[in-house]
């Protein structure tokens, strides 16, 4: 076995252990499936962990109605092909109030359409544990996360009230009102995720591969025009450029990068050479200092 494969093997083994441990310790787990590359790896590991059975929990997608169309098609096909239960939750109250990424600032929009929607969906399903694909290498507050991240009543993250995790021991005992977020990909890096996708030949959303797509350049970020709801500013005109995405979220808030990486090997190469982190393209991370930590405290994952 080569060194690289054994490195990924270790990560895979650790993640499968976490899945099985959580499934054994919690009453009603759910997998937060957000369709991107991390979710793809997360779902693949979940399926491996319980193979030949199906994962003993449903998938949950928080649909803001602003996801890329390719993502929704990929989500539905994945659930169908693998025969998985998929719960789709949208904050209809937010829709009725016309909360959009164009009209509100990103924090307000994310709070209402993502965080509040997630809390409501977890409460509605009575879930006590939610698997997420967050990785420690992504961002400063995620670098502090436990594998079992405890959330106080109301799903609030309190960084000072987390438990030590020695070796591979995971203590899942819940206090009253507590729930837990479980992060099987904690120790993976973006490069690991891509190399694993290449090695396991996993399908991912085509938006990760370069193709000519219509974009506008706004504040130095390339925003793809995914449908007719795009609100162009004065003087803006969509132009076709060869782009791909390093990370996928709501299309008005996710910046593309210009790239020629049109297949998996090229993407792996590009990721390993990249000088910027992937979250540089996430507009919701940059609207204020410690943006992610504040979102996590509100219940974001």
């Amino acid at each position, binding site marked *: 076995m080569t*060194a690289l494969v054994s490195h990924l093997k270790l990560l895979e083994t650790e993640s499968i252990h976490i899945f099985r441990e959580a499934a054994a310790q919690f009453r009603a787990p759910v997998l937060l499936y957000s369709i991107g590359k991390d979710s793809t790896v997360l779902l693949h590991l979940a399926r491996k962990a319980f193979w030949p059975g199906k994962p003993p929990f449903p998938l949950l997608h928080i649909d803001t109605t602003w996801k890329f169309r390719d993502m929704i098609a990929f989500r539905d096909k994945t659930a169908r092909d693998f025969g998985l239960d998929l719960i789709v939750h949208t904050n209809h109250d937010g829709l009725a109030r016309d909360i959009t990424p164009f009209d509100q600032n990103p924090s307000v929009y994310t709070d209402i359409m993502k965080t509040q929607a997630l809390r409501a969906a977890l409460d509605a399903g009575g879930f006590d544990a939610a698997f997420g694909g967050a990785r420690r290498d992504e961002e400063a507050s995620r670098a*502090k996360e436990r594998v079992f991240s405890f959330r106080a009543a109301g799903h609030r993250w309190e960084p000072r009230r987390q438990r030590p995790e020695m070796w591979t021991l995971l203590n899942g005992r819940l206090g009253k009102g507590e729930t837990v977020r479980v992060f099987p990909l904690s120790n993976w890096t973006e490069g690991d995720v891509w190399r694993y996708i290449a090695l396991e030949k996993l399908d991912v959303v085509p938006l990760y591969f370069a193709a000519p797509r219509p974009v506008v350049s706004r504040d130095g970020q390339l925003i793809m025009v995914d449908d007719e709801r795009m609100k162009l500013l004065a003087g803006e005109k969509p132009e076709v450029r060869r782009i791909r995405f390093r990370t996928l979220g709501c299309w008005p808030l996710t910046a593309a990068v210009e790239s020629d990486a049109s297949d998996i090997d090229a993407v792996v190469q590009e990721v390993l050479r990249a000088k910027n982190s992937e979250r540089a393209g996430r507009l919701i991370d940059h609207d204020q200092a*410690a943006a992610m930590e504040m979102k996590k405290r509100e219940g974001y994952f």
Partner: protein
Amino acid sequence: MQMAALTEEIAVAPALVPAPDTSGMVRLLTCGSVDDGKSTLIGRMLWDSAAVAEDQRAAIMHASQNRALNGEKVDFSLLLDGLQAEREQGITIDIAWRYL
């Protein structure tokens, strides 16, 4: 302070080819009293090892304004101390995981 690390080329092994030697893992331990600079030392080594993405470097340099000590321009401890409470108090409260 020398900022040479900023423009350093990051050597990249071709994808899917293992690194030549992974047996040379370095374990690093820092001991010291409060405010001796344990996090700052580790942060400085991360910074110089070119393992920090450029947008993260820019964010750290921005956050370092008015807080770096001893005439330095960068507060390297910010690479480890990412929580608001840690930054406000200038201390490490919890471990941080970073990968090279």
